[in-house]
């Protein structure tokens, strides 16, 4: 039999989807850092997290990743996309790039994705759920209501988050996330 008729196949790469996820993760990572300084609910959540927390959210099996750690001051810090040399104690993986795209294009909410087993969590589960809650709030700030509604489990009511608080928070978080710090982060990560 001529086995050459059935060659080995090395599947290619989904470059554009990876870049998209990379950008989303970068912005979300930076936004978590900003929200931890800005929003009191997030602040409170962060306080409850273990002090040495350093987690990543990424896509299996080869990235992209977003590493975020808790600072000594009690805030959050975006630590870049490189896993090397970081003492990570909570790993949140999305199973594959297609699932990540589903989540990051808001076709599937984070909660549904969890239910569909698209996230693989290694580490402390309560911490992971706290982080999902933080992510939900961050999304509320970052995105218009119409999109956020698709992505989060429950959109906060007026009583929980007034439009005033939302809009001021949104400006501040965007300012902090995309400001000078972003450039600094990118440069330090590349170097």
């Amino acid at each position, binding site marked *: *039999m001529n*086995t050459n008729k*059935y*060659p*080995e*196949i*090395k*599947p*290619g*790469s*989904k470059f554009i989807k*990876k870049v998209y996820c990379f950008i989303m993760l970068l912005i979300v990572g930076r936004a978590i850092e900003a929200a931890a300084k800005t929003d009191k609910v997030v602040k409170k959540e962060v306080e409850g997290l273990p002090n040495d927390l350093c987690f990543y959210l990424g896509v*299996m*099996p*080869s990235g992209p990743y977003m590493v975020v750690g808790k600072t000594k001051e009690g805030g959050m810090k975006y630590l870049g996309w490189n896993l090397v040399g970081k003492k990570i104690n909570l790993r949140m993986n999305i*199973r*594959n*790039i*297609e*699932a990540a795209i*589903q989540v990051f294009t808001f076709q599937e909410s984070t909660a549904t994705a969890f239910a*569909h087993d698209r996230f*693989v969590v290694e580490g402390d589960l309560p911490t992971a759920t706290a982080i999902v809650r933080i992510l939900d709030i961050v999304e509320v700030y970052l995105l218009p209501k119409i999109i956020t509604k698709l992505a989060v489990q429950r959109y906060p009511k007026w009583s929980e988050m007034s439009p005033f608080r939302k809009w001021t928070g949104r400006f501040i978080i965007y300012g902090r996330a995309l400001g000078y710090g972003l450039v600094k982060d990118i440069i330090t990560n590349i170097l």
Partner: protein
Amino acid sequence: MHIPDYYEFFNHLKIMSGKRVLESIPSELASYDAYKPLVIADKSITESGLVKKFITAFADTGMTLGGIYDEVRDYAGISLALNAEVIFRERGCDSIIALGSGPVVDVAKALNVLVSENSGTLQPYMDGAPIGKHLKPLIYVYACCSMGLEATGYLSIDNRVMKSDFLFPDVIMIDPRLAPGCCPPCAAESAVIALDHALGAGAGPEPSPMLDAYIHAALRFLAENMKKGVKKPGDKAASMALANASAMAAVAFYNSKPGMVHLLAVELARITGTSAGRFMRVLLPYRMAYMLSKKMKIRDELYLALAGFDAYSSTPEGERTRKGIEAVLDLLNTTKKALPQTMKELNVPRHQLKNAAEAASAASGKFFTAADCLSLLEHAWEGKAY
């Protein structure tokens, strides 16, 4: 609810169904510590280009596909498995993915036995030697239709059947990109097989609660989706439902005694070379009528599953059985344009009926008598009501 004195239920299968499920194959494989699968595929899948979608699921995973062996068509033969074994060993593969329906999965299972047991031949297992250990990971990707035995521990190769718990695929993936059927007959056949398997499993002496759960879900899916799925085999939602029904009915079938219709259909298929699903379509109504005429127990739950709770509760208790059978016949009638409806159309020579009946009776371990089997076949052949 009645709890039987004793029951067993075995299902090794992990069912994954839904959008983008193909992309989970690499992580599933990785969870079995497997990184280089050999893909056994149906020729029609490579020809229609569907296989490309499958390959892209492996992008960025770093996994290499050991090869796509796409020589399987409508017959599962040991030669195919032996050829695939050569590729499997040459490329150092460690797992198998079956991409397609019936024969593909059978070849994949046979290959799995060959490479896991290192026996070089299947003869000892065909002669009754048990398979004694866990085989390599086998992922079954549902495509187009089902022949009914894929998601079970049955292996039917070269017209011989083996049964072992180890022959179950590890995972079945039902993805809307691959699930839609190619043509109405194909979809109708797999739906009829699922229906027959679910009914056959439900007709056993004392079904277990687990079995009931599977049968009920399978029948509900069929009741709601068969008409649409047969008419428009390309419809994603309906085909997904039928695929799920097939998988569940298969598991139920594995955990019960094969029914008379199944046995007869398989024997007739072997004699005539026409596929078994077509015979099931013709024989099922006669079997139901026979059971009704002999006052054999047909459970009310059949009607509950097929018609829903409202219709069930608004029907007097005494009529539920009859209504249940009517619901089955209605379902079968949805295949009117897709499948032959009478034995005449299937062109079975009358003198072959006896052989089929005897073989089916023997296959059931004389659970069904040859006379009963023959009577069913003769009624069906003559189109005579019970």
